[in-house]
Protein backbone atom coordinates (compact mmCIF):
# COMPACT_ATOMS: atom_id res chain seq x y z
CA UNK A 1 0.00 0.00 0.00
CA UNK A 2 2.73 2.42 1.04
CA UNK A 3 4.34 3.82 -2.11
CA UNK A 4 7.83 5.20 -1.84
CA UNK A 5 7.70 8.94 -1.95
CA UNK A 6 10.29 11.51 -2.77
CA UNK A 7 11.79 13.44 0.15
CA UNK A 8 13.01 16.82 -0.94
CA UNK A 9 16.34 17.80 0.62
CA UNK A 10 16.89 20.90 2.72
CA UNK A 11 19.39 22.24 0.22
CA UNK A 12 16.88 22.05 -2.58
CA UNK A 13 14.36 24.04 -0.54
CA UNK A 14 16.99 26.61 0.23
CA UNK A 15 17.92 26.87 -3.43
CA UNK A 16 14.26 27.38 -4.30
CA UNK A 17 14.03 30.12 -1.72
CA UNK A 18 17.12 31.90 -3.11
CA UNK A 19 15.71 31.86 -6.62
CA UNK A 20 12.36 33.21 -5.38
CA UNK A 21 14.05 36.06 -3.51
CA UNK A 22 16.11 36.90 -6.57
CA UNK A 23 12.98 36.99 -8.71
CA UNK A 24 11.28 39.24 -6.15
CA UNK A 25 14.09 41.76 -6.20
CA UNK A 26 14.20 41.58 -9.96
CA UNK A 27 10.52 42.47 -10.26
CA UNK A 28 10.78 45.30 -7.69
CA UNK A 29 13.87 46.62 -9.45
CA UNK A 30 12.21 46.62 -12.86
CA UNK A 31 9.11 48.30 -11.48
CA UNK A 32 10.78 50.99 -9.42
CA UNK A 33 13.88 51.78 -11.45
CA UNK A 34 13.06 50.48 -14.90
CA UNK A 35 10.41 53.05 -15.70
CA UNK A 36 11.56 53.29 -19.31
CA UNK A 37 9.98 49.91 -20.01
CA UNK A 38 6.62 51.71 -19.81
CA UNK A 39 3.61 49.55 -20.46
CA UNK A 40 5.79 46.49 -20.50
CA UNK A 41 6.14 46.69 -16.72
CA UNK A 42 2.72 45.17 -16.13
CA UNK A 43 3.48 42.32 -18.46
CA UNK A 44 6.92 41.72 -16.98
CA UNK A 45 5.61 41.93 -13.42
CA UNK A 46 2.92 39.36 -14.19
CA UNK A 47 5.37 37.19 -16.08
CA UNK A 48 7.80 37.15 -13.17
CA UNK A 49 4.93 36.51 -10.76
CA UNK A 50 3.91 33.53 -12.84
CA UNK A 51 7.45 32.19 -12.86
CA UNK A 52 7.53 32.54 -9.08
CA UNK A 53 4.15 30.83 -8.76
CA UNK A 54 5.41 27.99 -10.92
CA UNK A 55 8.52 27.60 -8.79
CA UNK A 56 6.47 27.52 -5.60
CA UNK A 57 4.03 25.00 -7.05
CA UNK A 58 6.73 22.78 -8.54
CA UNK A 59 9.19 22.63 -5.70
CA UNK A 60 7.56 23.79 -2.46
CA UNK A 61 4.23 22.24 -3.29
CA UNK A 62 5.93 19.13 -4.58
CA UNK A 63 4.14 19.04 -7.92
CA UNK A 64 7.34 18.03 -9.67
CA UNK A 65 7.43 14.74 -7.80
CA UNK A 66 3.70 14.09 -7.68
CA UNK A 67 1.86 11.82 -10.12
CA UNK A 68 1.15 13.37 -13.48
CA UNK A 69 -2.58 13.67 -12.74
CA UNK A 70 -1.94 16.56 -10.35
CA UNK A 71 -0.15 18.56 -13.01
CA UNK A 72 -2.87 17.82 -15.54
CA UNK A 73 -5.60 18.91 -13.15
CA UNK A 74 -3.99 22.19 -12.22
CA UNK A 75 -3.25 22.85 -15.87
CA UNK A 76 -6.91 22.37 -16.75
CA UNK A 77 -8.10 24.52 -13.85
CA UNK A 78 -5.70 27.33 -14.62
CA UNK A 79 -6.38 27.32 -18.34
CA UNK A 80 -10.08 27.44 -17.60
CA UNK A 81 -9.55 30.45 -15.42
CA UNK A 82 -7.44 32.14 -18.08
CA UNK A 83 -10.18 31.52 -20.65
CA UNK A 84 -12.65 33.15 -18.24
CA UNK A 85 -10.37 36.17 -18.05
CA UNK A 86 -9.96 36.36 -21.81
CA UNK A 87 -13.67 36.03 -22.57
CA UNK A 88 -14.53 38.59 -19.92
CA UNK A 89 -12.04 41.22 -21.00
CA UNK A 90 -12.86 40.55 -24.64
CA UNK A 91 -16.40 41.74 -24.00
CA UNK A 92 -15.16 44.93 -22.40
CA UNK A 93 -12.57 45.67 -25.07
CA UNK A 94 -14.98 45.17 -27.97
CA UNK A 95 -17.71 47.38 -26.54
CA UNK B 1 -46.01 44.99 -43.84
CA UNK B 2 -44.31 44.14 -40.55
CA UNK B 3 -44.57 46.40 -37.54
CA UNK B 4 -40.84 47.12 -37.58
CA UNK B 5 -37.78 46.41 -39.68
CA UNK B 6 -36.57 43.72 -37.27
CA UNK B 7 -39.68 41.57 -37.24
CA UNK B 8 -38.62 39.63 -40.32
CA UNK B 9 -35.16 38.65 -39.11
CA UNK B 10 -36.28 37.73 -35.60
CA UNK B 11 -39.29 35.76 -36.73
CA UNK B 12 -37.28 33.97 -39.37
CA UNK B 13 -34.76 32.72 -36.82
CA UNK B 14 -37.63 31.79 -34.52
CA UNK B 15 -39.46 29.81 -37.20
CA UNK B 16 -36.36 28.06 -38.50
CA UNK B 17 -35.43 26.81 -35.05
CA UNK B 18 -38.98 26.03 -34.01
CA UNK B 19 -39.50 24.13 -37.25
CA UNK B 20 -36.44 21.96 -36.76
CA UNK B 21 -37.32 21.53 -33.09
CA UNK B 22 -40.89 20.44 -33.68
CA UNK B 23 -39.71 17.94 -36.26
CA UNK B 24 -37.23 16.37 -33.86
CA UNK B 25 -39.65 16.43 -30.96
CA UNK B 26 -42.31 14.57 -32.90
CA UNK B 27 -39.90 12.18 -34.56
CA UNK B 28 -38.13 11.22 -31.35
CA UNK B 29 -41.35 10.86 -29.39
CA UNK B 30 -42.82 8.73 -32.14
CA UNK B 31 -39.79 6.45 -32.31
CA UNK B 32 -39.75 6.19 -28.53
CA UNK B 33 -43.36 5.07 -28.35
CA UNK B 34 -42.92 2.74 -31.30
CA UNK B 35 -39.95 0.99 -29.64
CA UNK B 36 -41.87 0.82 -26.41
CA UNK B 37 -44.52 -1.33 -28.02
CA UNK B 38 -42.44 -3.19 -30.57
CA UNK B 39 -39.89 -4.38 -28.01
CA UNK B 40 -42.18 -4.91 -25.06
CA UNK B 41 -41.22 -7.85 -22.90
CA UNK B 42 -44.22 -9.73 -24.29
CA UNK B 43 -43.17 -9.20 -27.89
CA UNK B 44 -39.43 -9.50 -27.41
CA UNK B 45 -38.56 -11.65 -24.40
CA UNK B 46 -34.83 -11.74 -25.07
CA UNK B 47 -32.98 -8.48 -25.59
CA UNK B 48 -30.03 -8.02 -27.86
CA UNK B 49 -26.88 -6.31 -26.63
CA UNK B 50 -25.72 -3.68 -29.09
CA UNK B 51 -22.84 -1.83 -27.46
CA UNK B 52 -22.39 0.74 -30.19
CA UNK B 53 -22.32 1.48 -33.89
CA UNK B 54 -19.68 3.89 -35.06
CA UNK B 55 -21.31 4.89 -38.33
CA UNK B 56 -24.62 5.69 -36.66
CA UNK B 57 -22.89 7.69 -33.95
CA UNK B 58 -20.94 9.75 -36.46
CA UNK B 59 -24.15 10.46 -38.36
CA UNK B 60 -25.99 11.70 -35.32
CA UNK B 61 -23.08 13.85 -34.29
CA UNK B 62 -22.59 15.45 -37.66
CA UNK B 63 -26.24 16.18 -38.46
CA UNK B 64 -26.95 18.09 -35.24
CA UNK B 65 -23.70 19.99 -35.71
CA UNK B 66 -24.79 21.17 -39.12
CA UNK B 67 -28.26 22.01 -37.89
CA UNK B 68 -27.08 24.08 -34.93
CA UNK B 69 -24.70 25.97 -37.17
CA UNK B 70 -27.65 26.86 -39.39
CA UNK B 71 -29.65 27.94 -36.36
CA UNK B 72 -26.78 30.03 -35.11
CA UNK B 73 -26.43 31.69 -38.48
CA UNK B 74 -30.06 32.74 -38.71
CA UNK B 75 -29.82 34.10 -35.17
CA UNK B 76 -26.77 36.13 -36.00
CA UNK B 77 -28.00 37.69 -39.24
CA UNK B 78 -31.23 38.71 -37.53
CA UNK B 79 -29.30 40.28 -34.66
CA UNK B 80 -26.45 41.96 -36.48
CA UNK B 81 -28.40 44.94 -37.89
CA UNK B 82 -29.59 45.83 -34.39
CA UNK B 83 -26.06 46.69 -33.35
CA UNK B 84 -25.52 49.79 -35.49
CA UNK B 85 -28.07 52.51 -36.08
CA UNK B 86 -28.14 54.24 -39.47
CA UNK B 87 -26.53 57.66 -39.38
CA UNK B 88 -29.68 59.49 -40.43
CA UNK B 89 -31.69 58.07 -37.52
CA UNK B 90 -33.76 60.46 -35.44
CA UNK B 91 -32.40 60.54 -31.89
CA UNK B 92 -34.69 60.44 -28.89
CA UNK B 93 -33.58 60.08 -25.29
CA UNK B 94 -35.45 57.37 -23.39
CA UNK B 95 -35.18 57.62 -19.62
CA UNK B 96 -36.21 54.75 -17.37
CA UNK B 97 -36.76 55.19 -13.68
CA UNK B 98 -38.85 53.43 -11.04
CA UNK B 99 -41.51 53.00 -12.57
CA UNK B 100 -41.96 55.27 -15.53
CA UNK B 101 -40.62 55.84 -19.01
CA UNK B 102 -39.89 59.37 -20.24
CA UNK B 103 -39.03 60.24 -23.81
CA UNK B 104 -37.15 63.46 -24.55
CA UNK B 105 -37.24 64.75 -28.11
CA UNK B 106 -34.39 66.75 -29.64
CA UNK B 107 -36.31 70.03 -29.66
CA UNK B 108 -37.18 69.82 -26.00
CA UNK B 109 -40.53 68.07 -26.13
CA UNK B 110 -40.97 65.62 -23.26
CA UNK B 111 -43.55 62.86 -23.31
CA UNK B 112 -44.29 59.75 -21.31
CA UNK B 113 -45.25 57.79 -24.37
CA UNK B 114 -43.33 57.39 -27.57
CA UNK B 115 -44.65 58.84 -30.82
CA UNK B 116 -42.63 58.25 -33.98
CA UNK B 117 -43.08 58.94 -37.68
CA UNK B 118 -43.56 55.97 -39.98
CA UNK B 119 -40.68 54.62 -42.09
CA UNK B 120 -38.08 56.72 -40.38
CA UNK B 121 -35.26 55.12 -38.37
CA UNK B 122 -35.44 56.11 -34.73
CA UNK B 123 -32.56 55.79 -32.34
CA UNK B 124 -33.32 55.70 -28.63
CA UNK B 125 -30.50 56.72 -26.31
CA UNK B 126 -31.20 54.76 -23.17
CA UNK B 127 -30.63 56.25 -19.75
CA UNK B 128 -31.54 54.97 -16.31
CA UNK B 129 -31.42 57.10 -13.21
CA UNK B 130 -31.76 54.34 -10.63
CA UNK B 131 -31.66 50.59 -11.33
CA UNK B 132 -31.74 48.27 -14.31
CA UNK B 133 -34.68 48.48 -16.66
CA UNK B 134 -35.22 47.04 -20.09
CA UNK B 135 -37.15 48.70 -22.86
CA UNK B 136 -39.16 46.08 -24.69
CA UNK B 137 -41.57 46.54 -27.61
CA UNK B 138 -42.85 43.03 -28.37
CA UNK B 139 -44.49 44.03 -31.64
CA UNK B 140 -41.17 45.39 -32.90
CA UNK B 141 -39.24 42.34 -31.61
CA UNK B 142 -36.70 44.51 -29.85
CA UNK B 143 -35.46 44.79 -26.33
CA UNK B 144 -32.50 46.44 -24.73
CA UNK B 145 -31.46 46.80 -21.12
CA UNK B 146 -31.34 50.30 -19.69
CA UNK B 147 -28.37 50.36 -17.38
CA UNK B 148 -27.48 53.20 -15.04
CA UNK B 149 -24.08 54.64 -15.81
CA UNK B 150 -23.97 53.18 -19.30
CA UNK B 151 -24.89 54.78 -22.61
CA UNK B 152 -26.73 52.10 -24.50
CA UNK B 153 -28.90 52.66 -27.52
CA UNK B 154 -31.47 50.81 -29.57
CA UNK B 155 -32.89 51.62 -32.95
CA UNK B 156 -35.77 50.58 -35.18
CA UNK B 157 -38.04 51.77 -37.95
CA UNK B 158 -41.78 51.69 -37.41
CA UNK B 159 -43.33 50.38 -40.60
CA UNK B 160 -47.00 50.09 -39.75
CA UNK B 161 -49.37 52.70 -38.33
CA UNK B 162 -50.69 51.80 -34.90
CA UNK B 163 -50.05 51.83 -31.18
CA UNK B 164 -47.84 49.21 -29.60
CA UNK B 165 -47.14 48.27 -25.98
CA UNK B 166 -43.87 49.15 -24.31
CA UNK B 167 -42.93 46.95 -21.34
CA UNK B 168 -40.12 46.99 -18.85
CA UNK B 169 -38.55 43.54 -19.17
CA UNK B 170 -35.85 43.72 -16.51
CA UNK B 171 -37.10 43.34 -12.97
CA UNK B 172 -36.88 46.75 -11.26
CA UNK B 173 -38.77 46.52 -8.00
CA UNK B 174 -42.24 46.70 -6.59
CA UNK B 175 -44.23 48.11 -9.49
CA UNK B 176 -42.14 46.55 -12.26
CA UNK B 177 -45.21 45.20 -14.01
CA UNK B 178 -46.84 48.64 -14.08
CA UNK B 179 -43.93 50.30 -15.87
CA UNK B 180 -45.87 50.46 -19.10
CA UNK B 181 -45.93 52.88 -21.96
CA UNK B 182 -46.83 52.82 -25.60
CA UNK B 183 -45.24 53.52 -28.94
CA UNK B 184 -47.48 55.12 -31.55
CA UNK B 185 -46.42 55.08 -35.17
CA UNK B 186 -48.02 57.96 -37.06
CA UNK B 187 -47.66 59.57 -40.47
CA UNK B 188 -45.02 62.23 -41.02
CA UNK B 189 -47.67 65.01 -40.93
CA UNK B 190 -49.34 63.77 -37.78
CA UNK B 191 -45.95 63.51 -36.18
CA UNK B 192 -45.10 67.13 -36.98
CA UNK B 193 -48.49 68.26 -35.67
CA UNK B 194 -47.96 66.31 -32.46
CA UNK B 195 -44.46 67.68 -32.07
CA UNK B 196 -45.53 71.31 -32.43
CA UNK B 197 -48.63 71.07 -30.27
CA UNK B 198 -47.54 72.61 -27.02
CA UNK B 199 -47.25 70.60 -23.86
CA UNK B 200 -50.65 69.91 -22.42
CA UNK B 201 -50.26 72.44 -19.63
CA UNK B 202 -53.77 73.95 -19.43
CA UNK B 203 -54.14 75.05 -15.85
CA UNK B 204 -52.18 72.28 -14.20
CA UNK B 205 -49.93 73.33 -11.37
CA UNK B 206 -46.28 73.31 -12.59
CA UNK B 207 -45.33 71.42 -9.44
CA UNK B 208 -47.78 68.64 -10.33
CA UNK B 209 -46.33 68.44 -13.83
CA UNK B 210 -42.89 68.01 -12.31
CA UNK B 211 -44.15 65.31 -9.95
CA UNK B 212 -45.66 63.49 -12.92
CA UNK B 213 -42.67 63.73 -15.27
CA UNK B 214 -40.25 62.62 -12.59
CA UNK B 215 -42.31 59.61 -11.52
CA UNK B 216 -42.62 60.90 -7.97
CA UNK B 217 -46.22 59.80 -7.89
CA UNK B 218 -45.24 56.15 -8.41
CA UNK B 219 -44.21 56.07 -4.78
CA UNK B 220 -45.85 59.03 -3.05
CA UNK B 221 -49.62 59.32 -3.18
CA UNK B 222 -51.61 62.54 -3.26
CA UNK B 223 -54.60 61.18 -1.35
CA UNK B 224 -52.97 60.03 1.84
CA UNK B 225 -52.78 56.35 0.92
CA UNK B 226 -49.58 54.53 1.66
CA UNK B 227 -47.62 53.34 -1.37
CA UNK B 228 -43.85 53.00 -1.18
CA UNK B 229 -42.92 56.33 0.32
CA UNK B 230 -44.85 58.66 2.61
CA UNK B 231 -47.87 60.39 1.09
CA UNK B 232 -47.72 64.03 0.03
CA UNK B 233 -51.12 64.77 1.49
CA UNK B 234 -50.79 67.02 4.50
CA UNK B 235 -47.05 66.54 4.45
CA UNK B 236 -46.02 70.01 5.51
CA UNK B 237 -46.41 70.42 9.21
CA UNK B 238 -46.85 66.71 9.76
CA UNK B 239 -45.05 65.09 12.65
CA UNK B 240 -42.84 62.19 11.52
CA UNK B 241 -40.44 59.85 13.27
CA UNK B 242 -37.23 59.56 11.31
CA UNK B 243 -34.09 57.56 11.82
CA UNK B 244 -30.89 59.52 11.25
CA UNK B 245 -27.49 57.88 11.84
CA UNK B 246 -29.19 55.15 13.81
CA UNK B 247 -31.03 57.54 16.15
CA UNK B 248 -34.77 57.98 16.33
CA UNK B 249 -35.84 61.61 16.05
CA UNK B 250 -39.20 63.28 15.98
CA UNK B 251 -39.43 66.11 13.53
CA UNK B 252 -42.00 68.44 12.06
CA UNK B 253 -41.79 68.30 8.27
CA UNK B 254 -41.06 71.73 6.80
CA UNK B 255 -40.06 73.07 3.40
CA UNK B 256 -36.37 72.89 4.13
CA UNK B 257 -36.63 69.21 5.12
CA UNK B 258 -38.49 68.34 1.91
CA UNK B 259 -35.95 70.18 -0.25
CA UNK B 260 -33.16 68.35 1.55
CA UNK B 261 -34.82 64.99 1.03
CA UNK B 262 -35.24 65.62 -2.68
CA UNK B 263 -31.54 66.32 -3.01
CA UNK B 264 -30.18 63.69 -0.60
CA UNK B 265 -32.94 61.19 0.05
CA UNK B 266 -30.90 58.62 1.94
CA UNK B 267 -29.37 60.66 4.75
CA UNK B 268 -32.28 59.66 6.97
CA UNK B 269 -35.29 57.39 6.70
CA UNK B 270 -38.84 57.72 7.90
CA UNK B 271 -39.69 55.00 10.35
CA UNK B 272 -41.57 52.02 8.88
CA UNK B 273 -40.55 52.96 5.33
CA UNK B 274 -37.73 51.39 3.33
CA UNK B 275 -34.65 53.52 2.82
CA UNK B 276 -32.42 53.38 -0.22
CA UNK B 277 -35.03 53.12 -2.94
CA UNK B 278 -35.10 56.78 -3.96
CA UNK B 279 -32.43 58.27 -6.18
CA UNK B 280 -31.12 61.78 -5.67
CA UNK B 281 -32.88 64.40 -7.76
CA UNK B 282 -30.34 67.14 -6.98
CA UNK B 283 -28.96 67.10 -10.51
CA UNK B 284 -32.31 66.71 -12.21
CA UNK B 285 -34.45 69.35 -10.54
CA UNK B 286 -33.40 72.98 -10.26
CA UNK B 287 -34.04 74.98 -7.11
CA UNK B 288 -36.97 76.62 -8.85
CA UNK B 289 -38.42 73.24 -9.70
CA UNK B 290 -38.13 72.16 -6.09
CA UNK B 291 -39.83 75.34 -5.01
CA UNK B 292 -42.69 74.64 -7.41
CA UNK B 293 -43.04 71.12 -6.10
CA UNK B 294 -43.13 72.22 -2.47
CA UNK B 295 -45.63 74.90 -3.39
CA UNK B 296 -47.84 72.25 -4.95
CA UNK B 297 -47.46 69.85 -2.01
CA UNK B 298 -48.57 72.59 0.38
CA UNK B 299 -51.89 72.77 -1.48
CA UNK B 300 -52.68 69.11 -0.80
Amino acid sequence: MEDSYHITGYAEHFGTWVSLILLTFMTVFISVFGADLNTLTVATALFIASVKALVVAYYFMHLKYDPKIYRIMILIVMSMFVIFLIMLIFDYLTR
Amino acid sequence: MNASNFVEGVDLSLYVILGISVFFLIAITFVMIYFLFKYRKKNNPVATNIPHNTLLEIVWTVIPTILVLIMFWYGWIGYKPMLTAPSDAMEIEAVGQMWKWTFKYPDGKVSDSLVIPIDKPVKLNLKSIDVLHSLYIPAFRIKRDVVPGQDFMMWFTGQKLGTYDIFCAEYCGQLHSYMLSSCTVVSEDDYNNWLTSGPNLSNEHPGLTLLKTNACLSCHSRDGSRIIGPSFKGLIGRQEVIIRDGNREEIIVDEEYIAGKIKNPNTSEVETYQAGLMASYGDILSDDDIKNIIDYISTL
Partner: protein
Amino acid sequence: MEHSFSLPNSGHNYDAKASKLGMWLFLYTELLLFGGLFMVYMVYRALNPDAFLIASFNLNVWLGTINTVVLLTSSMTVAMSITAIQKGNSKLSLILLALTVAAAVIFLVIKYFEWGAKIEHGFWPGMDHFTNLPFGEQLYFYLYFFMTGLHGLHVVVGMVFILIVMKKIKNGSQNKNKNQLLENSGLYWHLVDLIWIYLFPLFYLIH
Protein backbone atom coordinates in the same frame (compact mmCIF):
# COMPACT_ATOMS: atom_id res chain seq x y z
CA MET C 1 -19.94 -2.71 15.66
CA GLU C 2 -19.11 -6.25 14.53
CA HIS C 3 -17.63 -6.05 11.10
CA SER C 4 -17.01 -9.51 9.77
CA PHE C 5 -16.29 -8.52 6.21
CA SER C 6 -14.48 -5.46 4.96
CA LEU C 7 -13.95 -4.21 1.47
CA PRO C 8 -10.44 -3.64 0.18
CA ASN C 9 -11.17 -0.02 -0.85
CA SER C 10 -12.98 1.34 2.14
CA GLY C 11 -13.94 4.90 2.97
CA HIS C 12 -12.92 4.20 6.57
CA ASN C 13 -9.26 3.47 5.91
CA TYR C 14 -6.58 6.09 6.43
CA ASP C 15 -5.71 7.11 2.88
CA ALA C 16 -2.99 9.73 2.58
CA LYS C 17 -3.47 9.97 -1.16
CA ALA C 18 -7.17 10.65 -0.87
CA SER C 19 -6.58 13.33 1.68
CA LYS C 20 -3.93 14.95 -0.48
CA LEU C 21 -6.19 14.88 -3.53
CA GLY C 22 -8.98 16.36 -1.45
CA MET C 23 -6.68 19.15 -0.30
CA TRP C 24 -5.67 19.97 -3.84
CA LEU C 25 -9.30 20.12 -4.93
CA PHE C 26 -9.97 22.49 -2.05
CA LEU C 27 -7.05 24.63 -3.17
CA TYR C 28 -8.65 24.93 -6.62
CA THR C 29 -11.74 26.38 -5.04
CA GLU C 30 -9.58 28.85 -3.13
CA LEU C 31 -7.80 29.81 -6.32
CA LEU C 32 -11.10 30.49 -8.05
CA LEU C 33 -12.44 32.38 -5.04
CA PHE C 34 -9.58 34.82 -5.46
CA GLY C 35 -9.96 34.36 -9.20
CA GLY C 36 -13.32 36.11 -9.03
CA LEU C 37 -11.64 39.06 -7.37
CA PHE C 38 -8.87 39.07 -9.96
CA MET C 39 -11.55 39.27 -12.64
CA VAL C 40 -13.06 42.31 -10.95
CA TYR C 41 -9.61 43.83 -10.61
CA MET C 42 -8.81 43.23 -14.27
CA VAL C 43 -12.02 44.79 -15.54
CA TYR C 44 -11.85 47.87 -13.34
CA ARG C 45 -8.21 48.34 -14.07
CA ALA C 46 -8.94 48.15 -17.79
CA LEU C 47 -11.70 50.73 -17.35
CA ASN C 48 -9.66 53.09 -15.12
CA PRO C 49 -5.97 52.55 -15.96
CA ASP C 50 -4.76 56.01 -14.90
CA ALA C 51 -6.67 56.14 -11.63
CA PHE C 52 -5.27 52.76 -10.61
CA LEU C 53 -1.78 53.96 -11.38
CA ILE C 54 -2.18 57.14 -9.34
CA ALA C 55 -3.78 55.32 -6.43
CA SER C 56 -1.02 52.72 -6.34
CA PHE C 57 1.53 55.43 -5.47
CA ASN C 58 -0.09 55.62 -2.05
CA LEU C 59 1.22 52.17 -1.15
CA ASN C 60 4.67 51.60 0.22
CA VAL C 61 6.60 49.32 -2.14
CA TRP C 62 9.22 48.51 0.48
CA LEU C 63 6.72 47.27 3.04
CA GLY C 64 5.21 45.13 0.30
CA THR C 65 8.62 43.78 -0.64
CA ILE C 66 9.47 42.94 2.97
CA ASN C 67 6.18 41.12 3.33
CA THR C 68 6.86 39.19 0.15
CA VAL C 69 10.23 38.08 1.49
CA VAL C 70 8.67 37.16 4.85
CA LEU C 71 6.03 34.99 3.19
CA LEU C 72 8.51 33.32 0.84
CA THR C 73 10.74 32.50 3.79
CA SER C 74 7.85 31.03 5.73
CA SER C 75 7.02 28.91 2.71
CA MET C 76 10.52 27.55 2.78
CA THR C 77 10.41 26.75 6.49
CA VAL C 78 7.13 24.93 6.14
CA ALA C 79 8.47 22.92 3.20
CA MET C 80 11.57 22.07 5.20
CA SER C 81 9.50 20.99 8.19
CA ILE C 82 7.86 18.39 5.97
CA THR C 83 11.29 17.16 4.94
CA ALA C 84 12.25 17.03 8.60
CA ILE C 85 9.29 14.95 9.67
CA GLN C 86 9.68 12.60 6.72
CA LYS C 87 13.24 12.00 7.88
CA GLY C 88 11.90 11.36 11.36
CA ASN C 89 13.17 14.55 13.00
CA SER C 90 10.04 15.79 14.77
CA LYS C 91 11.92 18.31 16.86
CA LEU C 92 13.42 20.14 13.89
CA SER C 93 10.03 20.01 12.22
CA LEU C 94 8.48 21.73 15.21
CA ILE C 95 11.13 24.46 15.26
CA LEU C 96 10.61 25.13 11.56
CA LEU C 97 6.86 25.34 12.03
CA ALA C 98 7.32 27.75 14.91
CA LEU C 99 9.41 29.91 12.56
CA THR C 100 6.60 29.76 10.03
CA VAL C 101 4.07 30.95 12.57
CA ALA C 102 6.47 33.72 13.61
CA ALA C 103 6.73 34.82 9.98
CA ALA C 104 2.96 34.83 9.70
CA VAL C 105 2.75 37.08 12.74
CA ILE C 106 5.35 39.44 11.30
CA PHE C 107 3.38 39.56 8.06
CA LEU C 108 0.19 40.43 9.88
CA VAL C 109 1.86 43.08 12.03
CA ILE C 110 3.30 44.81 8.97
CA LYS C 111 -0.09 44.56 7.30
CA TYR C 112 -1.68 46.05 10.40
CA PHE C 113 0.57 49.09 10.27
CA GLU C 114 0.06 49.43 6.54
CA TRP C 115 -3.73 49.38 6.87
CA GLY C 116 -3.53 51.61 9.92
CA ALA C 117 -1.61 54.24 7.99
CA LYS C 118 -4.12 54.12 5.15
CA ILE C 119 -7.05 54.47 7.49
CA GLU C 120 -5.33 57.28 9.36
CA HIS C 121 -5.05 59.14 6.09
CA GLY C 122 -8.72 58.58 5.44
CA PHE C 123 -8.58 55.99 2.68
CA TRP C 124 -11.16 53.70 4.30
CA PRO C 125 -14.46 53.61 2.37
CA GLY C 126 -16.82 56.24 3.66
CA MET C 127 -14.16 58.52 5.14
CA ASP C 128 -13.98 62.13 3.97
CA HIS C 129 -10.72 61.91 2.09
CA PHE C 130 -11.89 58.73 0.41
CA THR C 131 -15.20 60.06 -0.81
CA ASN C 132 -13.40 62.94 -2.50
CA LEU C 133 -11.28 60.62 -4.60
CA PRO C 134 -12.24 59.94 -8.23
CA PHE C 135 -14.26 56.75 -8.73
CA GLY C 136 -11.35 54.84 -10.25
CA GLU C 137 -9.17 55.45 -7.21
CA GLN C 138 -12.01 54.56 -4.89
CA LEU C 139 -12.36 51.23 -6.69
CA TYR C 140 -8.64 50.63 -6.33
CA PHE C 141 -8.87 51.05 -2.58
CA TYR C 142 -12.04 48.98 -2.31
CA LEU C 143 -10.24 46.17 -4.04
CA TYR C 144 -7.05 46.73 -2.08
CA PHE C 145 -8.85 46.37 1.22
CA PHE C 146 -11.09 43.54 0.03
CA MET C 147 -8.34 41.43 -1.51
CA THR C 148 -5.59 41.96 1.04
CA GLY C 149 -8.20 41.61 3.78
CA LEU C 150 -9.38 38.27 2.45
CA HIS C 151 -5.76 37.23 2.01
CA GLY C 152 -5.04 38.25 5.59
CA LEU C 153 -7.91 36.08 6.72
CA HIS C 154 -6.31 33.17 4.89
CA VAL C 155 -3.02 33.87 6.65
CA VAL C 156 -4.81 33.62 9.98
CA VAL C 157 -6.53 30.37 8.99
CA GLY C 158 -3.25 28.93 7.74
CA MET C 159 -1.63 29.88 11.04
CA VAL C 160 -4.34 28.09 13.00
CA PHE C 161 -3.87 25.00 10.84
CA ILE C 162 -0.16 24.99 11.53
CA LEU C 163 -0.67 25.42 15.25
CA ILE C 164 -3.03 22.45 15.28
CA VAL C 165 -0.50 20.35 13.39
CA MET C 166 2.21 21.40 15.82
CA LYS C 167 0.12 20.07 18.66
CA LYS C 168 -0.36 16.80 16.80
CA ILE C 169 3.36 16.47 16.17
CA LYS C 170 4.01 17.03 19.85
CA ASN C 171 1.67 14.25 20.92
CA GLY C 172 3.01 12.03 18.17
CA SER C 173 -0.11 11.61 16.06
CA GLN C 174 1.74 13.22 13.15
CA ASN C 175 4.98 11.36 12.62
CA LYS C 176 7.40 9.87 10.14
CA ASN C 177 4.83 7.50 8.69
CA LYS C 178 1.69 9.53 9.00
CA ASN C 179 2.12 13.18 8.14
CA GLN C 180 -0.52 14.02 5.56
CA LEU C 181 -2.09 16.64 7.80
CA LEU C 182 1.21 18.49 7.96
CA GLU C 183 1.61 18.19 4.22
CA ASN C 184 -1.89 19.55 3.68
CA SER C 185 -1.30 22.51 5.96
CA GLY C 186 1.90 23.08 4.04
CA LEU C 187 -0.03 23.05 0.77
CA TYR C 188 -2.49 25.54 2.20
CA TRP C 189 0.31 27.76 3.38
CA HIS C 190 1.94 27.71 -0.05
CA LEU C 191 -1.38 28.71 -1.57
CA VAL C 192 -1.48 31.75 0.70
CA ASP C 193 1.98 32.53 -0.60
CA LEU C 194 0.95 31.95 -4.21
CA ILE C 195 -1.88 34.42 -3.97
CA TRP C 196 0.35 37.02 -2.41
CA ILE C 197 2.81 36.53 -5.28
CA TYR C 198 0.10 37.93 -7.56
CA LEU C 199 -1.34 40.52 -5.17
CA PHE C 200 2.06 42.08 -4.69
CA PRO C 201 2.71 43.19 -8.28
CA LEU C 202 -0.95 43.98 -8.94
CA PHE C 203 -1.23 46.48 -6.12
CA TYR C 204 2.30 47.64 -5.37
CA LEU C 205 4.21 47.38 -8.60
CA ILE C 206 2.09 48.96 -11.29
CA HIS C 207 4.21 52.03 -11.79
